[in-house]
C-alpha cells in the first residue's frame, strides 16, 4: 500500500498543479486515512489541492490574502465533514467535485459580501498579478494579460465554468453535475465563453471597439 507521502512526492515529481489528480485508488486511501485523523494523509490532500483552491478563489476575488482566507475556510470545512456521517463527504469517488463545490460556494458568498461593500476591482492589483504570473514566460505576457482582462468581461456563470475546468481540473460532466445543468447546455456555455475570450483578445490586440452583439451578450 502506498503511503500518503508517496502521493505527495508524485505530485511534485511531475509538475505541481499541472495535471489535476483524478480520483485514484491512492487518493481514496489517502482520504480514508485523513478521515480517520491521519495528519500526514491530510497534509497530502492539502498539497494536492491547496494551490488549486487558492487559485480558483484568487481568480475571482483578485486578492491573495482574501483568496488564502477562503482556501483556509474551505479546507476547514472539508476536514470537518470528511468523516461526518450526516451531511459530510458521502460521494465516494467524487471528492474533487465535492471539494470544488464547497470552494465555489464559499467564493460566491465572498463575492456577495464584496458586492455589498461595493469594493471595485483594483486594476493595479490585476496588473501586478499578471506580471507575476507571466514572469516565467515573457513571450506569453501580452496574451495572458489580455486573457485576464477578457475574463473580467465574462458573466459570473461563464467564469465559473472556465475556472472549474482549469483550476479544478473537473470534466464537463462533473461541472454539469455540480452546477445542475444539462451537459449540452454547459458545453454550449463553455464554447460561448471561449469565443468571447478569443474575440476580446483579438480585438484588444488591434484595439478595436466591442461590437454591438458582444455588448448585448
Amino acid at each position, binding site marked *: 500500500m502506498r503511503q500518503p507521502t508517496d502521493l505527495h512526492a508524485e505530485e511534485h515529481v511531475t509538475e505541481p498543479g499541472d495535471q489535476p489528480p483524478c480520483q485514484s485508488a491512492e487518493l481514496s486511501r489517502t482520504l480514508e486515512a485523513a478521515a480517520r485523523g491521519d495528519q500526514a494523509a491530510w497534509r497530502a490532500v492539502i498539497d494536492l489541492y491547496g494551490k488549486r483552491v487558492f487559485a480558483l478563489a484568487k481568480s475571482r476575488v483578485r486578492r491573495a490574502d482574501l483568496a488564502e482566507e477562503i482556501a483556509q475556510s474551505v479546507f476547514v470545512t472539508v476536514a470537518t465533514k470528511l468523516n461526518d456521517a450526516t451531511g459530510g463527504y458521502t460521494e465516494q469517488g467524487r471528492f474533487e467535485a465535492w471539494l470544488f463545490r464547497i470552494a465555489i460556494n464559499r467564493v460566491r458568498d465572498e463575492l456577495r459580501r464584496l458586492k455589498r461593500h461595493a469594493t471595485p476591482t483594483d486594476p493595479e492589483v490585476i496588473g501586478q498579478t499578471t506580471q507575476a504570473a507571466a514572469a516565467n514566460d515573457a513571450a506569453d505576457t501580452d496574451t495572458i494579460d489580455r486573457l485576464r482582462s477578457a475574463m473580467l468581461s465574462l458573466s459570473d456563470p461563464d467564469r465559473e465554468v472556465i475556472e472549474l475546468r*482549469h483550476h479544478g481540473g473537473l470534466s464537463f460532466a462533473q461541472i454539469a453535475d455540480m452546477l445542475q445543468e444539462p451537459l449540452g447546455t454547459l458545453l454550449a456555455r463553455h464554447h460561448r465563453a471561449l469565443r468571447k475570450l478569443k474575440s476580446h483578445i483579438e480585438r484588444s490586440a488591434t484595439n478595436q471597439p466591442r461590437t454591438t452583439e458582444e455588448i448585448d451578450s
Partner: protein
Amino acid sequence: MTTRPNDNTNDHAAIPADLHDVEAALARAMRADRVNAPVGLEDRLFAASRSALPAPQLRLSEPLTPAQADMGRRIARHAFNSTLSRLRMAAAIALLVMGGLLALAILPNLQGTTSSTNHAHNPSSTIHLADSDVADSVLSALALSENSSFSTELESIRTAAEALDQSIQSDGLSILDLSETGV
C-alpha cells in the same frame, strides 16, 4: 499553444478546434496562478485545518506488533487494576457511610423501644412513678394545709383521742379490749 489543459481528453475533443488556442492560453494563465501561490500556503492551510480533523482512531485491520500488543496489555492491565482499586476504595467508603447512617437512624429508636419495653414488662416502675406522684401531691397538700383550720381540727382530734386513751387505761382497759367487747 498546443498544451492540453488537463487529462480530460474527451472533453478536449468536444471543444472546437479554433478554440483550442484560447483554452491552452487559459490553462497556462491559471497554472501560473498556482505556481505563483504564496510561499508556505500549504503549511498555513494545514495549520489552520488540522484541528478540524477527527481524532486519530486505531485501525483494527492492521495487526499490532508484539511490542505494541504487550504495551497495550500492560496499559490495559494497569488501567484495570487501577480501576479495581478505586472501586474497592469506593465500596469500603460507601459501606462505612451506610453503616454510620444506619446506626444513627437506629440508635434513638432503640433507646425509646427499650424504655417502653421495660415499662411493659415491669409494671412496678410505673407504679413507682405513680406512687411518687401521689406522695408529692400529699406532701404538697399537707404543706398547704399546715396553716389551715383543718390542721387545727386534726390537732384537737388527736388531743381528744389521747385523753380518751388515758382515761381508758386508767380504767384498766385498752381500745383493743373495747373493740372486742363491741363498745
